[in-house]
């Protein structure tokens, strides 16, 4: 959920590691200030392949199947703009982020959102998935984990993969494949896809890598899709920034413990914030991964927009759940250190609920 961070001006803020800083400075000292090849540094694409194999269980056919992007947003736009025409339909699963909703609207396509039942234990029904597919459906787009930080179960991912195959859909799967906060391996949709299903995996080297401000992401998959996507990327930004690519290369080839530490810290923040919210009588969806958390009041929020605005006036960024298919909920980025969680949770309750709840 980079957008939440962007608009709030608050990222998880782990900072760039010393190793990455040095690698970036070394690249500048070597004069790496020119265009790279259009798809990105070969070494970075190769390292990305390795990462996708390790985390997502996906074997991309050679470095030509990997395109380095200026972050997830560019990758997602390039993928969807290449695959979709106005009037087409996209199949996805609740909750849908507001940024994704706006992106799809800007592409003049419609969206069919499959419900997941209990928000805390998302599950899909085959009939719901089948009913959401029409003859205009072209693409299955999925984030794993979604904005709630909860993954779909393997059997649900298999169900989606099977429906994509039957309906002859292309798949755009936004996944980092990052293990959960507790180190459990949670591959996304890509690993379940049939070999005949055209797909791309989109992601960004962001919070777990300490690279939020460097704007480097990837788009990888079958060359039939990646090749035209590379041409669109060329028409947009030509190539991704060189020094950012060298920073990303240093980050993702570093010992995995660095990323694991950051994931673990996100997990501590999520747990502390969830505990603090619950102690104040707020309901939460406890995430297992990602960088955000959904919270709601004991009674439903009367006006999400007003609550968000009130919080923003006091320097707390939140996103309304309504546009994401979760009315009555607010999403917060995991920017708060564990020790500050009780104070912040209390402040949120005070600001949203005001005198009525007291």
């Amino acid at each position, binding site marked *: 959920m980079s957008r939440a961070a962007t608009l709030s001006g608050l*990222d998880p803020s782990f900072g760039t590691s010393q190793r990455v800083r040095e690698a970036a400075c070394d690249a500048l000292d070597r004069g790496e200030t020119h265009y790279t*090849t259009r798809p990105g540094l070969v070494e970075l694409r190769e390292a990305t392949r390795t990462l996708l194999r390790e985390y997502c269980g996906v074997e991309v056919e050679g470095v030509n199947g990997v395109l380095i992007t200026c972050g997830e947003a560019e990758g997602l736009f390039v993928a969807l703009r290449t695959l979709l025409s106005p009037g087409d339909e996209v199949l996805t699963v609740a909750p849908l982020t507001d940024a994704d909703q706006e992106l799809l609207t800007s592409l003049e396509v419609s969206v069919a959102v499959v419900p997941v039942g209990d928000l805390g234990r998302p599950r899909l029904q085959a009939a719901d998935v089948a009913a959401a597919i029409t003859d205009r459906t072209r693409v299955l787009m999925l984030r794993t984990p979604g904005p709630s930080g909860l993954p779909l179960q393997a059997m649900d991912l298999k169900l989606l993969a099977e429906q994509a195959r039957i309906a002859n859909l292309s798949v755009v799967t936004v996944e980092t494949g990052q293990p959960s906060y507790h180190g459990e391996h949670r591959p996304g949709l890509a690993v379940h896809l049939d070999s005949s299903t055209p797909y791309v995996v989109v992601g960004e080297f962001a919070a777990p890598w300490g690279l939020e401000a460097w704007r480097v992401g990837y788009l990888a998959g079958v060359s039939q899709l990646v090749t035209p996507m590379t041409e669109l990327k060329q028409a947009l930004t030509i190539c991704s920034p060189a020094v950012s690519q060298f920073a990303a290369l240093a980050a993702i080839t570093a010992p995995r413990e660095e990323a694991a530490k950051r994931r673990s810290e996100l997990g501590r923040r999520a747990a502390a914030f969830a505990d603090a919210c619950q102690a104040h009588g707020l309901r939460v969806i406890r995430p297992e991964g990602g960088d955000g958390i959904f919270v709601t009041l004991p009674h439903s929020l009367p006006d999400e927009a007003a609550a968000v605005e009130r919080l923003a006036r006091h320097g707390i960024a939140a996103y309304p759940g309504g546009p994401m298919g979760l009315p009555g909920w607010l999403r917060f980025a995991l920017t708060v250190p564990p020790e500050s969680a009780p104070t912040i949770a209390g402040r949120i309750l005070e600001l949203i609920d005001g005198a009525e709840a007291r």
Partner: protein
Amino acid sequence: MTEASPKQISQTQTSNEAIRQRFSLVERAARMQGVITLGRGDPDLPTPAHIVDAAKDAIRHGVDERTPAAGSSRLRGQIAAKLATENHVDVDPVDGVVVTTGGQEGLYMVIRAVLRPGDEILVPDPRYTSYDLAIEHAGAKMVLVPTNESDGFDLHPEEVERLITERTKALLLISPGNPTAGTITPPNIRRLAEIAQERNLLVISDEIYEKLLYDGTEHLSIGSLTPARDRTVTINGFSKTYCMTGWRLGYVAGPTSIMTAVAQRKELWSGPPPAVSQVAASAALTGPTEILDKYLEIYRRRRRLVLDALNRMGFSYGEPRGAFYVYLNASSVGLASYQISELLLEEAHVLLLPGTAFGDRWSNYMRLAYLAPEEQIGEAMGRMEATLRPHLKRGK
């Protein structure tokens, strides 16, 4: 994961063969040994040291947070100040500037923000063909305005007027131009501003080569002229002047109503440019300028070297009054420009881009970018002459 279905392939095909050819040549050259590259518009000179130092300083001290999608407020303010001081173009420093990940992305976002299906946009011919996709995606129609070698590829107002229809929405200007290195003369710029006002056109003015001018050529920003003041979007960037292609940093500036729409698209489709690149751009705008004079002198010498060699070989060209290109007329070779590029790459190990990369009707032209040290340029000219001599027609 193998074949895409016919349905999916039909939706993912893109059209521009010229762009593919251009990049195929560039990528082949990169894999070969001993090639002198006079193809890609990527300055060989280094990013000035004070800019690199500012970036390194920021990296060491932490530049860890994303900026707003439209760019840091500091950089936007500096860009607005630069436009006011140097170009006499007034824009709102908060809502009138969007920092982009390169000037090309800026153009894409502007085109998508202002053009609707059925609209027409006037574009000088030849053109940088990477712009085509933006126009195609907007569902708009590109109408090419002819320019000619004989007058240095100037853009004539009467040609523009002749092609305006009731569907014409915008006029794209690129001065100095790519690939021609020609400039639009100030009297023509002034008349084009009046036409834009008379015919209610938006002007998109790409000024990325504004500081690379020769022989006393003057740059005039159309957005500074009263008739065009409220209808011009200025596009610029740091790649060419400051040798910062790898930093991918540009900007668009203009009326806030348009910039708001551009900023929305930037946020949805791309997000903010890297924070480090923005710090570097800030240093470029506020740092010393002596190095730019030095670079310009280097380009001036290279340009003379190239033009002398082309004159010896009997090639004609439009007078290159700016940028770092020469768009030369290779009709005397008797081969199509792509064949000439192939021949030069394979036999002379010199890369020049074919004119067809810049429009269908330019099969007799080649773009030469003098972006290599003088010794290499001299060597390349010698190899080029030796390779093409057997093909050159007599009397040229």
